[in-house]
């Protein structure tokens, strides 16, 4: 007889529902179902738990599991078989928040949970609320419910608990403590108490119980959890937030742009009028300055002319004096030259006379 496990991935799958249609085809073949210790099979007829069984009980039923299924499958409208792993299991979620003194604290919380098989109807009820939707239609696309979730996985629970624990447990508890209190026994106790109280509703809705919780305040562990396991809800939220921020930002930018253009226009017109005023003032100033300069130039011209005239007379005077002086000088030099010449002549005459005497003597 072939043996069949009810789940493919025991680390991930925690509960699975089999519907009547699946039971009458797949399970009624020559297969024996293996339910390990700590697992429970719950038989649900018309939404009521009819039987809670284990593998041992199935072995005791004459004819084995196949006949047992056949005996159970008659009558009743809605028949479901739910198999639950009711051993404690651990989930890891991120813990972050700001302390009383406004310092960010991050870490990872390890929660030990257990699915209560005696509350199996709650679990099936909640799984029924998780509709599986698909988009149909070619031209006009619409979302339709194609079925309901039949599996509960560890990741589902992690995703479900992470956001709620973050908002209801870690944030408020961290806010009550100073950063120096981290690592204290009191904080450990408060986190556990807050988790038991604040997550109670969700846990009870799902037929689960929280057996233990502790937080490792380790920034690196939190970062690696965030990058690997952070719930898709968070990603979606982050995406929406970023979109919203972008919209707000673009609106702000357009507002700023409009404001700035308006401002710019206003400033431009003010500047233009100011420039015009300044220009006219400057023109007036420049004109008056020009007039002044022109006047000054005229004055200077007059003065220069006057000075030139004065200087011309002076020059003429100087020239005349220089001429007088030069003629004086010329005269003196002429006199001197004449004297020198006459002296020369005299000496020549004397020499000539001396020569004559000498010849005569000879």
């Amino acid at each position, binding site marked *: 007889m072939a043996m069949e496990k009810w789940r493919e991935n025991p680390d991930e799958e925690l509960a699975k529902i089999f519907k009547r249609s699946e039971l009458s085809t797949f399970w009624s073949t020559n297969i024996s179902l293996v339910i390990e*210790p700590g697992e429970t099979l719950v038989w649900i007829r018309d939404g009521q738990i009819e039987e809670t069984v284990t593998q041992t*009980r199935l072995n005791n039923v004459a004819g084995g599991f196949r006949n047992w299924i056949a005996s159970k499958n008659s009558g009743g409208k809605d028949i479901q078989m739910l198999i639950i792993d009711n051993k404690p299991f651990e989930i890891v979620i991120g813990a972050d928040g700001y302390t009383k003194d406004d310092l960010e604290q991050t870490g990872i919380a390890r929660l030990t949970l257990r699915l*209560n098989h*005696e509350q199996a109807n709650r679990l099936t009820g909640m799984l029924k609320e998780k509709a599986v939707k698909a988009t149909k239609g070619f031209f006009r696309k619409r979302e339709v419910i194609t079925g309901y979730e039949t599996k509960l996985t560890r990741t589902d629970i992690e995703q479900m608990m992470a956001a709620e624990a973050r908002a209801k447990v870690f944030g408020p508890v961290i806010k009550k403590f100073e950063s120096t209190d981290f690592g204290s026994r009191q904080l450990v106790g408060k986190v556990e*108490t807050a988790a*038991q109280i604040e997550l109670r509703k969700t846990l009870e809705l799902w037929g689960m119980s929280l057996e233990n919780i502790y937080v490792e305040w380790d920034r690196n562990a939190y970062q690696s959890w965030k990058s690997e396991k952070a719930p898709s809800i968070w990603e979606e939220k982050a995406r929406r937030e970023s979109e919203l921020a972008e919209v707000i930002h673009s609106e702000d930018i357009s507002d700023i742009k409009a404001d700035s253009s308006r401002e710019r226009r206003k400033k431009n017109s003010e500047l233009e009028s100011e420039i015009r005023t300044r220009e006219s003032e400057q023109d007036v100033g420049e004109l008056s300055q020009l007039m002044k300069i022109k006047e000054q130039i005229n004055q200077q011209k007059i003065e220069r002319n006057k000075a030139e005239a004065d200087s011309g007379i002076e020059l003429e005077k100087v020239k005349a004096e220089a001429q007088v002086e030069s003629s004086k000088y010329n005269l003196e030099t002429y006199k001197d030259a004449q004297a020198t010449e006459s002296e020369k002549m005299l000496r020549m005459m004397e020499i000539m006379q001396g020569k004559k005497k000498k010849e005569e003597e000879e």
Partner: protein
Amino acid sequence: MVEIITGALIGYRLVKDAKFVLSIAKYVKDYQGYDTKDNKEDDRAVRNWIMESINGLRTHAVNLMENGYRNDDDNLEREAKVMMDNLDLFKNEVNLASAREAKSVWNKVSDEDFDDLVEFDLKVVKGIDKVEKIMAELEIEVTSDGKNKTKLLGEAKSGITAARNHFIERMQFVGGFK
């Protein structure tokens, strides 16, 4: 003479068992005192009742813890946590007991042993019921800031331990079935 005494003893035993069975049936629906074709049905019914009752006790404990948390009563918070831890361990034992029924022994057990099992069941059921009443009273006492708070806290804690011990004895008794 011996026959009369034996008959009287059997009669006394039957009456006593019937009384016990009736007492348990007040709490556990359809309890038959291991007198049906499938005796494991009664065992499972008792264990399911215990588990559901433990869930109820746990809810009381969480309520007490919440009261302590909201009113900054660290002592109450701690005591409630101790109760919850004990209840979780109790529940774990009940779950483990259900996994232990791998031995198909239920068809070979003698009537006397079943009678003793009924007595064990009664002790556990009555013990849990007693704790339930104490915890309900304790919750009211805590909310109204009554004087008996500390006394009831102690009684609830010891009641949980006593009921758990009765269940362990029962588990050991069933484990001894061959």
